[in-house]
């Protein structure tokens, strides 16, 4: 466990930089986390992805499968990688404050 600071944000993160306490997520935190994933700013498109992930997670308790994410958000996988260079799992889920994806490694 480590503490990650960015501007006035100060959160606990694990070794991979995922939030330890997803409850304290807010939009500022998202910006802070984005900065670690080679995302310079969060555009409307970014937020669309982030919000979809958060909604899905709230409803089902799990992250959506990537195919579903693309379909529902309307972005191709390539576009998602363009937005989040470290990809939907490491990049987008981290920014969205979801638990660290497992299993699919």
């Amino acid at each position, binding site marked *: 466990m480590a503490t990650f600071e960015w501007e006035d944000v100060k959160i606990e993160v694990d070794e991979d930089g995922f939030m330890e306490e997803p409850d304290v997520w807010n939009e500022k935190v998202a910006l802070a986390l984005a900065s670690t994933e080679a995302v310079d700013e969060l555009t409307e498109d970014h937020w669309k992805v982030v919000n979809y992930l958060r909604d899905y997670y709230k409803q089902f308790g799990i992250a959506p499968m990537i195919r579903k994410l693309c379909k529902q958000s309307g972005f191709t996988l*390539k576009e998602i*990688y363009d937005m989040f*260079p*470290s*990809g939907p799992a*490491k990049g987008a889920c981290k920014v969205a404050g979801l638990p*660290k994806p497992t299993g699919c*490694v």
Partner: protein
Amino acid sequence: MADDFPKTPLIDELEKGPWPSFVTEIKMAAKDNAAPKDLLGLLEQSYDEKICHWKHGGIVGVLGYGGGVIGRYNDLPEKYPNISHFHTMRINQPSGWYYSTEALRKVCNIWEKHGSGLTNMHGSTGDIILLGCTTDELEPTFQDLAKEGFDIGGSGSDVRTPSCCLGKSRCEWACYDTMAACYDFTQEFQDEIHRPAFPYKFKFKFSGCPNDCVASIARSDMSIIGTWRDDIRMDKDAITDYASNGMDIQKDVVDLCPGKCIDWDGKELSIDNSSCLHCMHCINAMPKALRPGTDTGACILLGSKAPIIEGAFLSSVLIPFIKMEPPYQEIKDLVEEMWDLWCEEGKNRERIGEFIQRMGMGNFLEEIGVEPVAEMVAHPRENPYVFYEEYYEEDDEEEDGD
């Protein structure tokens, strides 16, 4: 530096004995690098406590890719700080694992610069495994390697690094060019290798003949195994040589032929090729006398995997025989077809073999547009629970779907 090695009496035992010792390898690397030195300590502790000291998961990678790096942290980072991060990178091996020493040395140099200096040559999927570096070094390692022409392989729910037997490069039995096909498929599916988007992993393995020297039938979602359709080629004189050199052809060849299609009258060998099961045994036993035919191609099988979760599978026949010619379009189209279906209907962490079994092979074939043929089954169904798909209604003239 050697003298500040940790005390490792347990694993030191593994430096004894005639087989090459991995402990010695780690020590060799530890001479110039702190990470392997910590690894020695950690391993000794594992040997002492009989438990591993690596933590679950870790999600790290290089930019633009979703796979190819296995994140790893130890659970005693204070004690072993030099391996507190110890991620491995999977580097896509060249087809057939051929190298020039020049290329290999370059890889070594890069890994000396960025990583632990430890490798697996190779991992069991086939990659070059660069064993252990920190998060910060991932991207630089990747870019240095890329500059030398190497790229990262698969991990996660993507296409895994394809592999192949050495095929036509050195084997007289290769029924198609495995190394070419493996390279071609790897290039074709770069995006699918690097950006996981499937329900689960998908592996390709290419073997040149039914001896299956990359174990494709046991370890790949799609197994492409060379075979032939015409007659086994025979050199009668060479057979006579085998016999006169003391080979017991009846016992060692004829009696072991699973097609029961070889006859040996003490002088002449004859094969009923229409009953030959293409098992390779007679050819294996008499390599100078027998060879596969010349109408060669591959049998394509689907679905093998380790036991998690439905139990282990062997691949089963999808296409009994197909010619293997670049660009292999028919196969690739089929692959896309079935990925679409699997991605649409597959469950999370459901391999394609499990998926086929869950939806029923008949339905699967129908969806991907392949005709069922008897070659696909060991035997037809034994149970009478048939989903007849249509029935007549009393007031119908026509058949009616339900």
